[in-house]
Structure formats: C-alpha cells, structure tokens
C-alpha cells in the first residue's frame, strides 16, 4: 500500500471519524469545535513552519481576515454560509499575496514582521472609519447564517482538506523540495528547485487554511469583535501545539493539540494559575530537552514517524 494511502486511512480517517461522532455523545460542542479549529490552525502552521522554516507569529492575521471576509459576504452580499467560507479562504490568500514580500526576511525578523502585519490588519478592520463595511470596533452579528451544526460539519471538511494537504507534502517530491528549501536555499536552487516559487506556494497554502478556519469560526460563533478573531492567542496556541508535537510530520501537530489543548480545557478555566504553571513548565521542558517536539522521542530511536 502506498504510504500516502496508509496515512489517509490510519491517521486522517480515524481522526475525522472521532470528531464526527463525538458531538452525538459529548455535550460541550463549542469545545469540540475549538479542538477542530486548533487542529486546522496547527496543521496550517505545520505547512509553513514545518516544511519551509518560516515561523508565522502573525498567523492569526489570516484567520481574522477570513472571519471578516465571511462577515462581509454575509452582511453586505447576503451570501450563503458555504460561499462565504470559500471567500474567507480567498481573503486569506489575498492577504498572503499582499504580505508575500515578508518572505524576503528570515528567522526572527520574519516572525516579528509577520506579527506586526497581523496587528496592522486588526487595526485596519477595527478602524471606526470602516464602520459601514466591517462595523469597525463594534463587532459583527451574523444571525442570518447562525447554524452551529452545519458550521461544525464545515470545520470537519476544512480539517479533512488541510490534513490531505499535509499528507501530500509528507509523501510527495513537492514536499521534499519544500524541506530542501528549509534546510538550505542555496543548495535547493542547485538541485533545480525554484526557491521563491516554493516559498510563496507554501505561504499561500497556509494562508488559505487559516482563512478557511476563520470563515468556519465566524459561521459557528456568529457574534464576534475584532479583538476576538485577531487575538494573538490563536497564533501562539497554534504554534505551541504544532511545535510541542513536532512539525514536518502528520501526527506531531495532532498530538500537540490533543494533549495541550486537552490540558487547557481540563484546568485552564477552573484553576488558571496551575494551568499557567504547568504550561510554562511543559514548554520550558520541551525547549530544553525536546526542541524537535514529542515525536523526536521516537525519531531519536530511529523509528519512522509519519
């Protein structure tokens, strides 16, 4: 059996099945929805960071941009929710194109510039002068499309597409070429790889993923303010979850989300002080002992991790 098919059958399909069944046996649908959103975002970070090495500290910019893309379509053009989700993804891609000059930077400079760019998008959207379009800082209310069950199903579709993209990267020469660019752009060019084109494709793919996630999020919550959908927490959580599990793998970000977001939901609300203590210790331990994530426990032993 080709490994791509194996990955789809034994990793992606069970994950989707679990999250498709859980709402009928577990009551806290919002929490399940958030799990799915973070799975999407962590895999989106995986696409850009794991495969190209660009750390997107302002990843939430695409997410918030997608949420507002959805809102504008519903409020002004009275679009149906699925159409608005597609437009949300395109809004992410458009933002990605606008910000593609950032790819000239690398390392911490890229991360900081990307963070600044996300803040710029937030303040653009939240500008009171744009009240007639985005409702500025006063937030949007999208009662026309309110349908949490349909939005949850849409989130699963987006998760399926995202996972499919990661499986493709993990099993294709295209993904291998992306990793070669991450390892050494000069040598990658000398292997015949168009470095700039590769980076832009990965960047736009991760922007599309976050835009779609923002769209389904807007559909699900239906009432939100700029500060909600542009909250830096989305970037930080998605990055930490992906890194904790281990990037450039399929299972790493999944493990990271299930474990860390699980801990967050267990004690994050009830005893936030312990949560922050445990989170801090976990992240310090990770950086010190497992900089390549939990999966490196296996890869160090020479085991192959999909």
């Amino acid at each position, binding site marked *: 059996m080709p490994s791509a098919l194996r990955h789809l059958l034994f990793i992606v399909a069970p994950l989707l099945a679990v999250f498709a069944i859980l709402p009928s046996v577990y009551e806290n649908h919002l929490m399940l929805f958030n799990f799915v959103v973070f799975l999407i975002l962590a895999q989106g970070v995986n696409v850009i960071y794991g495969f190209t090495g660009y750390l997107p500290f302002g990843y939430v910019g695409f997410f918030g941009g997608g949420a507002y893309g959805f809102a504008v379509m519903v409020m002004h053009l009275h679009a149906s929710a699925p159409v608005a989700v597609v437009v949300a993804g395109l809004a992410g891609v458009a933002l990605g194109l606008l910000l593609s000059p950032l790819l000239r930077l690398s390392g911490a400079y890229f991360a900081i510039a990307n963070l600044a760019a996300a803040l710029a998008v937030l303040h653009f959207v939240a500008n009171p002068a744009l009240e007639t379009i985005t409702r500025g800082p006063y937030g949007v209310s999208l009662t026309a499309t309110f349908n949490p069950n349909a939005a949850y199903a849409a989130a699963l579709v987006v998760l399926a597409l995202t996972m499919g993209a990661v499986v493709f990267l993990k099993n294709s020469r295209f993904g291998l070429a992306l*990793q070669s660019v991450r*390892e050494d752009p000069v040598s990658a060019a*000398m292997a015949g790889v168009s470095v700039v084109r590769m980076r832009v494709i990965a960047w736009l793919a991760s922007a599309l993923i976050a835009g779609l996630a923002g769209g389904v999020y807007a559909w699900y919550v239906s009432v939100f303010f700029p500060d909600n959908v542009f909250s830096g927490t989305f970037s930080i959580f998605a990055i930490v979850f992906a890194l904790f599990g281990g990037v450039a793998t399929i299972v790493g970000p999944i493990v990271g989300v299930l474990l860390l977001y699980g801990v967050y939901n267990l004690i994050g609300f009830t005893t936030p002080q312990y949560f922050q203590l445990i989170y801090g210790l976990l992240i310090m331990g990770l950086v010190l002992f497992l900089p390549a994530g939990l999966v490196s426990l296996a890869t160090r032993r020479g085991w192959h991790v999909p």
Partner: protein
Amino acid sequence: MSPKSAPILEASGVVKRFGGFHALDGLNFHVAPGEILGLVGPNGSGKTTAINVISGLYAPDGGRVSFRGQSVGGMASHRLVHLGINRTFQVPKPFLSLTVRQNIEVALAYGRAASAPPAMASLLDAFHLSEVADRPARDLNNVQQKTLDLVRALSTGPQLLLLDELAAGLNPTELDWIAGRIKALAQAGMAIVVVEHLMGFIEQITDRVIVMNAGKEIFEGTLAVAVTVPQVVEVFLGGEHAA
C-alpha cells in the same frame, strides 16, 4: 571528446564588485566540453567569486558570461541548473535533516536533466554512499558530505560542473579515487572547472590552468609552464623568488 572543441562556457571581461572592492576585475576564460580546467591563484584572487557568478549566486556587475552561446549572467541559479550548469561548495551544503537518498531524490526530480540522469542506485554505489543511503545527511563525515554535494550536482545531469575545493581534506587514497571519477566525467564529455589549492591534484587532473590574481587571469596554459613564469611565481611566493 577533444579539448579543442568549441567552448561551452565563455567569460569575457567579467566584473564583480563588493562595495569598492573589485573581486572580479575583467576576468576572461573559457572551457570546452570534455576539458578539465584548473582555476588557481592565491587566497582572495577571486576563484570562488568566479564560480559564484557562473552558478548564479551573484549577478555580475559587468562583462558577459555565455553558456552554449546564450548570455546567462545574472540568471537565477535554478534556471542555470536546468540549462546544465552545476557546482559543489567549498564547505559542503547538503540538506542536513533529509536522508542521503532524499537529498539525491530532490535533485533527480527537480534538476530537469537534459539526458536521463544516472539512476539513484548506481549513483549511491559509484560514490560509496549505499551504506548510509537512509541516514540523515547530518550523520555523514566531511568527505561523505562532499561526495553527496557532488552526487547532488551530478543528479541534475550537468554539462558544466564547477568544483570548489573538492579535494581539500581528502586523504591520498580518496584523492586518487575522486581524481579518477572526475576524469571519467570529463571523458564522457562534461566540461569541468576545478578550483583547488592542492597543486599535485591540479597537475594530476587538469588539461589547462588559469592563474588568477586580484580578480584577473594572469596566465593561461599548462601547470608545468605556469611555474616557470615569473609573474605567477611572484603572486604565489612574493617578489624576491621571481627569477
């Protein structure tokens, strides 16, 4: 193929400046298919800069670089690779976290070799990398990493190969072995430019050398003749040694 055939690469009056420093100051040379050309000269004479310009890492600030009659100065590296130019690096630059096999696979898949490149298995075998094929490149020793750099270049089916100090750090057995490999590639019609400090190695493999000083060629011919030219002796050893 005879070294007398038409040049595949011609550099004429190539200039490369870094600020006010002229790393290349009107360099002229050519190399023909099947020929091994040595590029020698003291440190800082512009040998590596010449290779960096020809392989697209730097755009020239003046002059003309033509490959198979086409002007290629300033073209992006990956496009030069597709045209048939490749190189190795003085400090090898493999994709460290990828396996040896994956390193080669990228070049085989994206190199767009004009004629079918050698198969993975024969490359691994010919360059003694079969045993480490599934190890990450970071596990290799320096000589193996240099060999991998060479195999990565060969996987793209180059017609012009630029070798930047490939021999440095090799033991005598490895030197003989790699010299044999390079000669075999030239006999198959590849044009090869070798930048090297090891004069014995240069003597063993090259048909012709260019001696560079301060970004220009000061001698062209065989190494045996070069060492009798006062100007060449002067740039290597200092004025008082020149006869």
